[in-house]
């Protein structure tokens, strides 16, 4: 039976992690159907149909899908579920919110946040903030799986031409109402997919000092991350948090500044290709995962770092 991929989108475009989830779905089974639930989401459905790994797109439209409320999405997915062996989406806040609502109704034990597909019923997932990897086998007839986007490469986003079918909308769930979304718009690369991430922690001391991070990030075309301590202290908004309960990032270069390296933070960044730590405490645990450690006062090191970058003839983009 085929795999049903729940597409995350903004009614116009696909969200980046849908491409990673599509790759994971195609590793489970070649027959991947993409479900696009939204309001005036024809553009998003068309974008999904262009993914070469997708064999069919199912588009479901209604005004009450505008804001992606899980209580509205779940009945649509449940109605289609009988045709599928697996239901898959990303393990970001969208998928984490939605998938268990489907799994419970299907009486299925969901497998969250997989990092590898071993076979159709066996997967590897991190537990204990990534300090252990569990290989787990689902004995349920129908499998509900969320995938860690950074553990799968994004699929190609052009060249496909899957047919688009329409399916019926479900009733509106009237006791949950969307009020507003405060998205922080930025010209920077997205934290989850950036090639370089520069992150600040408690050592930044206040929000204003994050401008030192911003200056370096501007120069490197990097995304800005933060430890939970920095977000809790109000230095920076929650969408920047990297770690066990924040975002998981796997950039080519991760620069941790003034971050001690609690296991909860390491959970979100230790798979990065190259890790740099700048910290004045030489004993900080962050140095145990850093490829390059610089024991220094960040308030001296960051301006020097920018100066040295300015001396370079070229910087990769």
């Amino acid at each position, binding site marked *: 039976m085929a795999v049903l991929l729940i597409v995350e989108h903004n009614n116009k475009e696909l969200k980046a992690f849908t491409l990673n989830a599509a790759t994971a779905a195609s590793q489970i089974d070649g027959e991947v159907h993409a479900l696009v639930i939204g309001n005036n989401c024809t553009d998003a459905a068309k974008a999904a149909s262009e993914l070469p790994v997708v064999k069919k797109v199912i588009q479901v439209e209604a005004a009450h899908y505008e804001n992606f409320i899980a209580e509205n999405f779940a009945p649509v997915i449940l109605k289609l579920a009988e045709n599928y062996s697996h239901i898959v989406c990303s393990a*970001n806040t969208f998928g984490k919110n939605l998938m*268990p609502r489907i799994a419970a109704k299907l009486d299925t034990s969901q497998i969250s946040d997989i990092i590898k597909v071993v076979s159709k019923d*066996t997967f590897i997932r991190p537990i204990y903030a990534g300090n252990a990897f569990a290989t787990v086998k689902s004995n349920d007839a129908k499998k509900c799986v969320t995938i860690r986007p950074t553990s799968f490469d994004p699929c190609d986003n052009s060249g496909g031409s899957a047919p688009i079918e329409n399916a019926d909308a479900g009733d509106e769930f009237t006791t949950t109402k969307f009020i507003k979304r405060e998205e922080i718009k930025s010209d920077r690369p997205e934290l989850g997919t950036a090639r370089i991430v520069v992150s600040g922690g408690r050592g930044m001391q206040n929000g204003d000092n994050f401008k030192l991070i911003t200056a370096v990030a501007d120069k490197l075309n990097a995304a800005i991350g933060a430890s939970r301590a920095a977000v809790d202290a109000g230095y920076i908004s929650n969408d920047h948090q990297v770690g066990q309960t924040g975002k998981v990032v796997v950039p080519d270069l991760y620069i941790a500044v003034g971050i001690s390296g609690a296991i909860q933070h390491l959970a979100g960044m230790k798979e990065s290709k190259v890790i740099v730590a700048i910290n004045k405490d030489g004993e900080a645990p962050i140095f145990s995962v850093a490829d*390059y450690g610089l024991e220094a006062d960040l308030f001296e090191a960051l301006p020097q770092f920018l100066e040295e970058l300015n001396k370079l003839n070229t910087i990769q983009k």
Partner: protein
Amino acid sequence: MKILVAVKRVIDYNVQIRVKEDGSGIVTENVKMSTNPPDDNAIEEAVKIKEAGKATEVIAITVGEEKSQETVRKALAVGADRGIHVKADGIIEPLAVSKILQKIVEKEKPDLVFMGKQAIDDDCNQTGQMLSALLDWPQATFASKIDVKDGKLEVTREIDEGLETIEVNTPAIVTCDLRLNEPRYASLPNIMKAKKKPIEQINASDLGVDISSKIQQIKVEEPPKRQAGIKVSSVAELVQKLKNEAKVI
């Protein structure tokens, strides 16, 4: 208004866990255990709502082995009124926990159920959403702010893009983020008082729900270790290494 708060006993967040040599799981013997951190936020929020005069009773519940009672006792020490301990041994998957909680909700008829958004042991992030599905209740997940209104809650949720605000009618489920509040510490007199508060014990097997494992844990292993890196002596050296050795800038 009655608030039921689910808490879980987990390995303390400060403990560096060890994988068993035979790959069968994680070493839990002689390891410090605590309440799952965001469950502390859930209790704190429920107690604050009661203190504000908007709730009449806070009930703490846990599902697990005999010792799990400690987490309920701790909740009683910071302001919960009474406790429920559903006894069950071994790994109880989130689906099974949500079925147990459903039975308790049907009996206790709370207006709200709070719990942490995720347990830091299995990192599943499922139970609250599953319970709301089974009950057909609204779900307000990853809450960092809760305003109690008449028969409604306005909840600010932490999402990848920033913040989202939704309104849910009660009864509802809320799963709590660590930023929701600052959990209080239990004072010694309150710890003593908590010993006198009632904890009802129920055997999971008496609830008539299937709590058998549907997921087979084949093996647990340590993740690949990162090679130890080097310390550089200056910013100039760091930039040269990144440019010429790691070739990432």
